[in-house]
């Protein structure tokens, strides 16, 4: 690949400590382990995976909100750790899951939308109001709402306020952590349509974190699948949804509930040995739940290899070299 990625994570890890109980040792919780992810300008990169697998933690590291315990993040080829906060905020902006708690109830819509300009000490205060109103119009918020408070808005309007705030300073990239999960389907489809339009009109790049795989399939150009702190598969959207390679990706896509009343809840085939980030299994961390596990899987961690059909996968099934190793 040529040129600098818009944002790139290189082998980043994040560890939290958790109390082990009275007089017991503190334990380490590995939320993200050695993840590498490269996002090119103009892409919609989706991050999917089990709840608790570290998606939000990874996103926070990519915005500089949490420092990685290992590894580096680069924005436009420069290490994030060396950039001033303001500059990060000018490149990357978040839209969070909950439009109810992510907006300050005591601030008017106008004040919320202009906040990034204030915080970043934008040199041109006379234009703040006009720019905020432009952005509000852009995301479909009537200007009469400028002096309203979040409590007076519907869920969809609040999420539009959050989007206007994220975009007012024209960042290059937006990290959307479950942008529509708190919204009903008709508002959700409006917001997804809006995100598509903004992408083509403003040339935005998105990192989209979502459990809604129908929305991911609809929006994303590439998808990374996370499991227990690691990226286990990464591919173009069409390839991943048509022929997932990693057994976890397969289980994940097999659990999507299309609205078909003649079908029941699918069996995930994953068993009930749920993953525990406090006690990560040796070898491939997915092996206790994997229907296709081989003897070597509990011993050796799989490496990331090119996947058939494109992209990359970390699974011994797709790594010829490793399969031979386990036999010998």
């Amino acid at each position, binding site marked *: 690949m040529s040129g600098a990625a818009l944002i790139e994570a290189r082998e980043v890890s994040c560890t939290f400590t958790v109390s082990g109980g009275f007089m017991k040792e503190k334990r380490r919780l590995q939320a993200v382990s050695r993840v590498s992810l490269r996002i090119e300008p103009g892409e919609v990169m989706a991050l999917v995976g089990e709840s608790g697998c570290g998606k939000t933690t990874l996103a926070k590291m990519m915005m500089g909100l949490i420092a990685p315990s290992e590894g580096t993040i680069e924005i436009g080829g420069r290490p994030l750790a060396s950039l001033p906060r303001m500059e990060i905020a000018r490149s990357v902006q978040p839209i969070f899951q909950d439009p109810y708690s992510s907006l300050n109830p005591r601030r008017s819509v106008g004040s919320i939308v202009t906040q990034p300009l204030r915080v970043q000490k934008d040199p041109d205060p006379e234009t703040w109001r006009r720019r905020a109103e432009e952005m509000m119009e852009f995301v479909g918020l009537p200007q009469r709402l400028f002096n309203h408070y979040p409590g007076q808005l519907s869920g969809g309007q609040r999420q539009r306020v959050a989007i206007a705030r994220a975009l007012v300073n024209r960042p290059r990239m937006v990290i959307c952590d479950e942008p529509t999960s708190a919204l009903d389907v008709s508002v959700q489809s409006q917001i997804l349509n809006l995100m598509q339009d903004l992408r083509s009109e403003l040339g935005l790049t998105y990192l989209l974190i979502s459990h809604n795989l129908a929305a991911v399939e609809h929006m994303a150009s590439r998808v990374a699948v996370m499991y227990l702190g690691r990226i286990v598969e990464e591919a173009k959207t069409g390839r991943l949804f048509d022929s997932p390679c990693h057994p976890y990706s397969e289980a994940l896509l097999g659990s999507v509930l299309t*609205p078909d009343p003649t079908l029941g809840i699918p069996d995930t085939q994953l068993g009930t040995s749920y993953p525990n980030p406090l006690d990560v299994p040796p070898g491939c961390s997915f092996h206790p739940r994997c229907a296709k596990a081989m003897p070597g899987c509990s011993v050796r961690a799989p490496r990331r290899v090119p996947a058939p059909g494109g992209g990359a996968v970390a699974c011994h099934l797709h790594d010829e070299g490793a399969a031979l190793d386990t036999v010998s």
Partner: protein
Amino acid sequence: MAAAPILEVESLNVAIPVPAGTLHPVQEVGFRVTRGHTLAIVGESGCGKSLTSLALMNLLPPRAARTAGRLALDGQDLLGLSEREMADIRGNRMSMIFQEPMTSLNPAYTVGDQLVEAERRHRRTSVTAARDRAVWLLEKVGMTGAGERLRQYPHQLSGGLRQRVMIAMALMCDPDLIIADEPTTALDVTIQAQILHLLADLQREFETGLILITHDLGVVARLCDRVAVMYAGQIVEEGTARQIFRTPAHPYTRGLLDCIPIPGKTRRGAHLGTIPGIVPSLVGSMPGCHFADRCPHASGACRSGPIAFRDGAGPGHRYRCVLSLPSGPARPDPAP
């Protein structure tokens, strides 16, 4: 098999005084939930789903007033109960999984303390026994290292883990009826499938009735026996899942079904269907159909007076609209 209703609701209304007048977020709502069965309530944000469930639990905000023709749990009238008697039923025979886990989990107590308390408030169990049950339930809802998780505070859990703590808490006392308000929205689809299996197993084993409030029409189609579609405070359509998905009759229901991307049918990146317009204000009274301002078929008849229910495509299917049943072909099942 006419199973006994575990919950009967007739003519439920909620009124809340607001500066502009009186808000009527729940109007003449009625339904039944049978033992071992699931009723889904779907509808646009703000249409009154959460207030309906809070009204059933008698947990409405202080100034809200509830009236109902009938409200009975397993034949027992709930309308005449004192707050103390009701508190005995809540979390015990009838429990609720709230929409916003952070507002109902206490940030100052560990997960374990809150789960143990949920059972010991109603049962004379020992702390150890309650703790064992908490661990068992947390494992059932897919939390490993449950023993350690009990010592964590809510803010130390991911969104999905908090939601599972809420689900475990609602199940601590084996209730007869569970009201689940968006129980799986913060969860990935594999965990969602496992939790839905768990709810279905519990239902089969204990004949629990379940009211599921959700925006996820996939969950509704796959799990629920009956569906009530709400719009602006009223039930506008009710029927079996098959009736609602195959032969939706109300224009709102039909618009709703067009909003969801269906893999293989909706072109990637294409615009999704939306329902233009906004929900009417629920302050004061509205004579005609609440959906009229957004409905592509609205006529004078729609605005002149209350709209009665009509019979839909089969037994138990009804909808509130002046139009006769759409004559076009039934919606095909989406490609599997």
